């Protein structure tokens, strides 16, 4: 019989803890990429009540890219959601070299950028407003110039004032990816970044990834087709799978 979760002690909830965990980064010091390891130890992930994978440990060294491979439903997206901190793993922990994610969630969130399969864009807002508001969500008040330069890199700065509902899927995907430029974070989590992208955008994304890794950044990419970037480590989740379909 599967035994239930043991009885963890309730961490004392003091104001000091609350303030320490939720102190937003001081705006003067913009977040420089501090080269820092990130790893997770024997993670067990459940989707609903179904076990997806277990006993997975992952180690990320600065300047390294990991590509997650495996058939559909193996848990690539679930692993990205676990790393990003949206959902907590049933067992196992993720930790940076200076503390676990659950102890300092706010510091963890300021070090990652998640580009999910769904573009989180508001159709009625314009391109620039979408990017501006998303950047202000993650960093103290950005300047308009950084937004426009990010759009220019992805070649959609001409559409700055058109509402997003008039954009094509590829343009929307470029707008979502331009978020990587407005906010310098250590860890990029990309979920199927190359869908709906034309070849020019894909090569642009590869160049950005390489530049990001040279400056000490890291990336985890969940994708089905190979990205052909040099020093990427391919991790196949099949060996950790728990579900009947993949055994």
């Amino acid at each position: 019989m599967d035994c239930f979760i043991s009885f963890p002690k309730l961490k004392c909830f003091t104001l000091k803890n609350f303030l320490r965990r939720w102190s937003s980064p001081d705006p003067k010091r913009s977040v420089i990429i501090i080269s820092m390891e990130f790893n997770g130890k024997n993670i067990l992930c459940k989707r609903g009540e179904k076990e997806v994978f277990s006993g997975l440990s992952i180690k990320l060294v600065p300047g390294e890219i990991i590509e997650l491979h495996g058939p559909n439903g193996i848990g690539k997206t679930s692993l990205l959601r676990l790393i990003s901190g949206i959902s907590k793993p049933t067992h196992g922990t993720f930790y940076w070299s200076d503390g676990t994610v659950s102890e300092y969630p706010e510091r963890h969130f300021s070090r990652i950028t998640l580009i999910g399969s769904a573009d989180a864009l508001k159709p009625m807002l314009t391109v620039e407003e979408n990017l501006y508001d998303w950047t202000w969500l993650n960093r103290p008040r950005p300047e308009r110039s950084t937004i426009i330069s990010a759009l220019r890199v992805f070649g959609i700065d001409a559409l700055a004032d058109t509402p997003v509902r008039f954009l094509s899927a590829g343009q929307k995907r470029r707008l979502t990816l331009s978020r990587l430029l407005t906010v310098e974070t250590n860890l990029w989590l990309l979920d199927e970044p190359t869908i709906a992208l034309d070849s020019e955008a894909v090569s642009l994304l590869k160049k950005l990834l390489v530049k990001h890794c040279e400056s000490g950044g890291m990336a985890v990419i969940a994708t089905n087709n190979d990205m052909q970037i040099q020093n990427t480590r391919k991790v196949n989740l099949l060996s950790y799978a728990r579900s009947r379909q993949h055994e």
Partner: protein
Amino acid sequence: MFNFLANPARFNQVTDRLMPATAGLAGLFLSIGIISALIISPPDYQQGDTVRIMYVHVPSAWMALFIYSFIAITSAIGLIWRHPFAHLSAQAAAPIGITFTILCLTTGSLWGKPMWGAWWVWDARLTSVLFLFFLYLGFMALNKAFDDPSRGEKSAAILALVGFINVPVIKFSVDWWNTLHQPASLLRADGPAIHSSMLTPLFLMALGFIFVAVCVLVTRIKVLLLKRRIRLMRINGGKLRS
């Protein structure tokens, strides 16, 4: 204590042994209670024999409130310590609570007809039990509203907590509202102090109700455990991990 009962296998062993005892006690208390309520206790000098309905109405009101606080406490445990067994027992207790609320409302209106001449009386306590009924309904509806049962349990638990904070507020505001719109001449139900000879059947019936509730709660928890196990077996395909 929670960790000890948390393991379903151990829970089943313990409850299998205790079940006949509690069921017997429930039957015993109920029978003595009914006999003393209907025959032994004297009719009230003011209300005559209708006071006998009180022996059913008041304990079911107590049970309705008691089970709702049980649900709130187990939900709080489930949320704070992420204890799925607590959510399970809260979900198992809800139908029992809602039955006692319905019992309380029907016997209340049956008592109101001879006393105040109307089936539904806007008495403060009766109205707050009516809203308690809707709180139960919201809890059960939210429990079943999601495809993924663990999602349903969590949001229903949070609703139980918020509802629990609200029960005294609703009671207070309905009291205030009642005194506001109260036509002066109504005879207050609990005017005369309850005579001691009426207290014994009241407590006997209350004890009987409590033991019945415990028995049914344990059976329903077993039912939900079995359902969970069957669901997991279907998903994970026959390979029962240890």
